[in-house]
């Protein structure tokens, strides 16, 4: 248990003062986010530059990620029209993956997506895209009708079902999309902070407690690997759900 003097990590550990000046742009998360844009673009531009039939190692790595999103998510989920959405899904996946992995990269060690503002901004794009696609394809009236009134249900029941369906499409989906990503990254980082700060605190304590510090650091390292898995998985799930929502918007039935 927390001994007197130990300050457990809290959400305040997630908020940084600007490194210089007073603008929010100068805080660590925002700088990491902008840095991610640079390295993602650099990596994939370099990797795709030659577009050789027999790929170099770099091109192979880039193509593996691209192929995973294009075929594994885009083609499998959306089907025929997937090519239109490939760049969008590719940007989502690489953006989230890179920013999540910052959580375990030494010296960065902060998952940008644990600031809810960033998942929200990506969710806004997904939200706009899947509604836009559906409205463009079916028209607003048919879209809402198909959404709220699924066929084969007794008419009075629609009074109960329709608001729930409506809420699902317009509120619950974006909320869960953003909250899931944020929550996983926030909790994961908090857990790592707890073991790291705890180990650090124990290291300053009495000799026999120091032994537990080793355990604490060991757990922090083990959890870092676990976190890496979660970070990749969350990037995948976010992209997959975006693709599923787009697929649902394109689908004719229901």
């Amino acid at each position: 248990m927390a001994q007197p003097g130990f300050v457990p990590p809290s959400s305040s550990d997630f908020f940084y003062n600007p490194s210089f000046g007073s603008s929010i742009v100068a805080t660590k998360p925002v700088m990491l986010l902008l840095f991610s844009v640079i390295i993602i673009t650099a990596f994939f531009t370099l990797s795709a530059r030659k577009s050789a039939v027999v790929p170099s190692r770099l091109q192979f790595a880039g193509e593996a990620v691209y192929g995973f999103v294009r075929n594994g998510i885009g083609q499998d989920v959306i089907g025929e029209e997937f090519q239109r959405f490939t760049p969008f899904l590719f940007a989502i996946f690489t953006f989230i993956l890179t920013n999540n992995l910052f959580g375990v990269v030494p010296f960065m060690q902060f998952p940008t997506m644990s600031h809810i503002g960033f998942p929200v901004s990506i969710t806004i794009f997904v939200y706009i895209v899947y509604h836009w696609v559906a409205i463009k394809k079916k028209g607003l009236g048919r879209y809402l009708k198909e959404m709220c009134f699924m066929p084969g249900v007794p008419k009075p029941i629609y009074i109960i079902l329709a608001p729930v369906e409506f809420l699902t499409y317009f509120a619950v989906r974006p909320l869960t999309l953003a909250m899931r990503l944020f929550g996983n990254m926030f909790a994961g980082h908090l857990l790592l902070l707890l073991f790291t700060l705890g180990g650090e605190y124990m290291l300053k304590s009495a000799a026999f407690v120091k032994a537990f510090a080793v355990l604490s650091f060991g757990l922090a390292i083990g959890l870092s690997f676990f976190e890496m898995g979660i970070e990749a998985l969350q990037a995948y799930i976010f992209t997959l759900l975006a693709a599923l929502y787009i697929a649902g918007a394109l689908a004719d039935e229901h």
Partner: protein
Amino acid sequence: MAGGTPDDGAFWTITSYLIAGLGFWGGCGFAADHFLKTGYWTLIGLLLGMGTGFYLIWIRFIRDDLNKPDPRLKK
């Protein structure tokens, strides 16, 4: 975190329906209790919301799945 398969889609669709059902009808019940100064509408609303959620899940994944596979479920 619920597995890394495309079934996540189904998992989160189900979750969304339940949240929406419970949220909407539970909220309606809560509002009714608040304005009518009663104490049971919240419970009724929550039950109705849960029922609605399950009903929608049933329609989406069991009934329609037999006739025409939901595009969101296809691999």
